[in-house]
């Protein structure tokens, strides 16, 4: 590594080759104003806010994209740089509608923050204010072109981070516009609504419909947690105000690198479903609200009436370690019944694993076997597309429709796995991504090749379920059946089978899931109210932290199971 000397504002330091002036300044605690710069994105020097003066250079240079040269001397805050930055801001304000008083972002806007910092008490240049489109064709967020400063952060997030390449630029100069595909409405474009662009937008151009006007950054609480909607387990920040969740943002420091998908960022907050808020007991054929005491007594009665060994439990493999352990302890350990998972678990056999998300970034070949990550494990799918941008070869070996196959260099049916594996052996840093529950004979083939393997499970905490020896194979007819459902859903077959049990207890979040099936309903906390741990796609234990307290009458799942265990 070559070490270079740089002097910034008279302070000399050593930095590694390739460091930009901005990075060197930040490391030295010198703040240079920026707008188009974002730590997660590649710098392109679009906005010119970070212009600095370099000794012996006539023109000012953008600090964000100017790499340090040995012996370079930089001044960041001279009268000339300050004047130029103010000029840049005045030009930005003259282009579109940047009236703060009717903007959703006012208070959190980076453009506004810079204008305040540079003492812009009024706008020097005329504001022609073209009437531009507001694109509300996407379900969860809005693009208001009038607020856009063309910093291209959204475009870089879409292309470089997510690998989706929906967003781009159209026209030149003051007529430049951010567009989707060939100037389609965003909702009709190839946009996957992952919301990464929304998360990086510095102004009010991209607005989250749900959290808009819900509170400024100073008014909200942020809790770092994990998404449990698939087995990737993306790190998230849940933003709440007064205990009400406003939005979910990706954690830039997580293995997902800030990226989330539609199902993790938006859908969990917009279910529109009626929640189970109190315990319920069936009386005269209808479910009626009950106290915890009545509900637990009813469960105890139903369980005790059943023949031991016919007291079964079904548990979603999406649940956290603690409730899953408690179900196994209570139903297998104490009641002597069977416990199975609702989701498909891998049949016995070796499950090659150990791969990390970042292995995909450095892979020269990614083989996807019997899985469709772009549909079921989307953040991983985006990562694979990004790897393809960086030169990795993508092979898909799967039967049926597969959205990943459209982006693959070669696609094989599953019967031709050997052909695909032959390519893997010629690669230097291959990564194999496969469906964990696929045929054990195919899994065995993966186990012997020299590649980093990443199994994709059907639910977030399937790894725990496997280690507890749980699977979803049919158990015998139950006389008493307990289902830990949370916000998951039963398949029609599972529902039919559950109907056969004379006594059904459902520990669930939503009313429509339990109606017509349960004899006793126990309310479960929602995903952002739960606390515990689970194992993510890399096999690492992750913490889930409650972002908001559950409603008063909803207890944690583990304490309900403890209470139940005590009563039987």
């Amino acid at each position, binding site marked *: 590594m070559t070490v270079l000397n740089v002097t910034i504002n008279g302070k000399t330091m050593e930095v590694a080759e390739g460091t930009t002036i901005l990075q060197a300044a930040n490391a030295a605690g010198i703040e240079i104003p920026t707008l188009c710069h974002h730590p997660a994105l590649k710098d392109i020097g679009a906005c010119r806010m970070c212009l600095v003066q370099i000794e012996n250079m006539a023109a000012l240079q953008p600090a964000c994209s100017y790499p340090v040269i040995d012996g370079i001397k930089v001044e960041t805050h001279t009268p000339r740089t300050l004047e130029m930055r103010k000029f840049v801001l005045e030009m930005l304000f003259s282009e579109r509608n940047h*009236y*703060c*008083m*009717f*903007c959703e972002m*006012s*208070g959190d806007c980076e453009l*506004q923050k810079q*204008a*305040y910092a540079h*003492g*812009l*008490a*009024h*706008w020097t240049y*005329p*504001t022609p*204010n073209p*009437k531009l489109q507001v694109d509300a064709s996407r379900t969860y967020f809005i693009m208001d072109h009038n607020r856009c400063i063309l910093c291209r952060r959204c475009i870089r997030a879409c292309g470089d981070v997510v690998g989706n390449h929906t967003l781009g630029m159209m026209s030149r100069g003051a007529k430049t516009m951010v567009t989707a595909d060939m100037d389609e409405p965003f909702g009709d474009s190839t946009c996957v609504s992952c919301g990464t662009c929304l998360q990086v937008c510095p102004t009010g151009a991209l607005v989250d419909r749900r959290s808009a006007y819900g509170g400024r950054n100073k008014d909200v609480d942020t809790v770092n947690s994990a998404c449990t909607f698939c087995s990737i387990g993306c790190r998230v920040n849940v933003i709440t105000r007064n205990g009400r969740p406003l939005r979910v943002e990706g954690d830039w420091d997580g293995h997902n690198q800030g990226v989330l998908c539609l199902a993790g960022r938006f859908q969990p907050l917009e279910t529109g479903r009626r929640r189970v808020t109190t315990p319920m007991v069936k009386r005269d054929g209808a479910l009626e609200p009950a106290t915890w005491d009545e509900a637990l007594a009813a469960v105890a009665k139903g369980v005790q009436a059943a023949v031991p060994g016919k007291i079964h439990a079904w548990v979603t493999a999406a649940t956290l370690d603690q409730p899953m352990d408690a179900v196994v302890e209570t139903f297998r350990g104490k009641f002597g019944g069977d416990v199975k998972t609702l989701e498909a678990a891998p049949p016995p056999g070796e499950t090659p694993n150990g791969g990390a998300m970042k292995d995909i970034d450095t892979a020269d070949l990614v083989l996807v076997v019997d899985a469709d990550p772009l549909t079921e494990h989307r953040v991983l799918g985006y990562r694979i597309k990004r790897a393809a941008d960086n030169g990795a070869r993508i092979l898909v070996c799967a039967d049926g429709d597969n959205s990943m196959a459209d982006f693959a260099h070669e696609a094989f049916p599953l019967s031709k796995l050997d052909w695909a594996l032959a390519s893997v052996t010629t690669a230097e840093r291959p990564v194999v991504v496969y469906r964990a529950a696929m045929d054990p004979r195919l899994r065995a083939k993966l186990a012997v090749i020299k590649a980093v393997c990443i199994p994709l499970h059907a639910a977030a905490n399937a790894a725990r379920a496997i280690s507890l020896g749980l699977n979803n194979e049919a158990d015998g007819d139950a006389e008493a059946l307990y289902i830990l459902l949370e916000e998951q859903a039963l398949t029609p077959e599972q529902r039919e089978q559950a109907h056969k049990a004379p006594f059904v207890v459902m520990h669930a979040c939503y009313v429509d899931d339990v109606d017509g099936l349960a004899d006793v309903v126990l309310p479960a906390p929602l995903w952002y109210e739960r606390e515990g741990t689970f194992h993510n796609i890399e096999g690492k234990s992750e913490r889930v932290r409650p972002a908001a307290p559950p409603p008063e009458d909803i207890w944690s799942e583990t304490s309900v199971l403890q209470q139940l265990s005590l009563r039987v």
Partner: protein
Amino acid sequence: MAKPKIATDWMGDCAGCHMSLLDMDERLLTVLGKVELTSSPITDLKHPPEEGVAVGVLSGSINNTSNVYVARMMRKRSGCLIAMGDCAVLGGVLSMRNAFDIKEGLRRAYIDTESTVDGFIPQSDELAKPIRNRPLDQVVKVDYHLPGCPPSADAIFHVLNELAEGREPVVEGEALKYD
């Protein structure tokens, strides 16, 4: 020595800036100890005196022909002119209207409104004519800008006090706000 005179007036605005001015509370007495308030929309005398004032303060945007008249009169009679509030400085909420045709807007307001029966657009030579909305400095020269919707009482006090003390008012830090 006679105290310097000050006059205020409003144009296309919501009166919020003048409310904020009153929010100076007991500091009003400090200011009034240093200057003489000749006229304002919230005093008996509404118009700046013909002999002129040292400082004129205008809030609101230029939104019709009457506003132009008020702005020009204040400019003519003031030594220095302050644009107070977002409407006067930047154009304000009323500039949302600029995205639409004025006739279309009048029609929507006076005729097409759901609750209106037999509506008509008022037309009289005595009424001001609506024009494209714009900030004050697009019509007359402005010496000091004090944005904010409304500017805080602290910011207004700061500007008036600095002027009364014979200093140049600089709006920055906490005093500088656009909403």
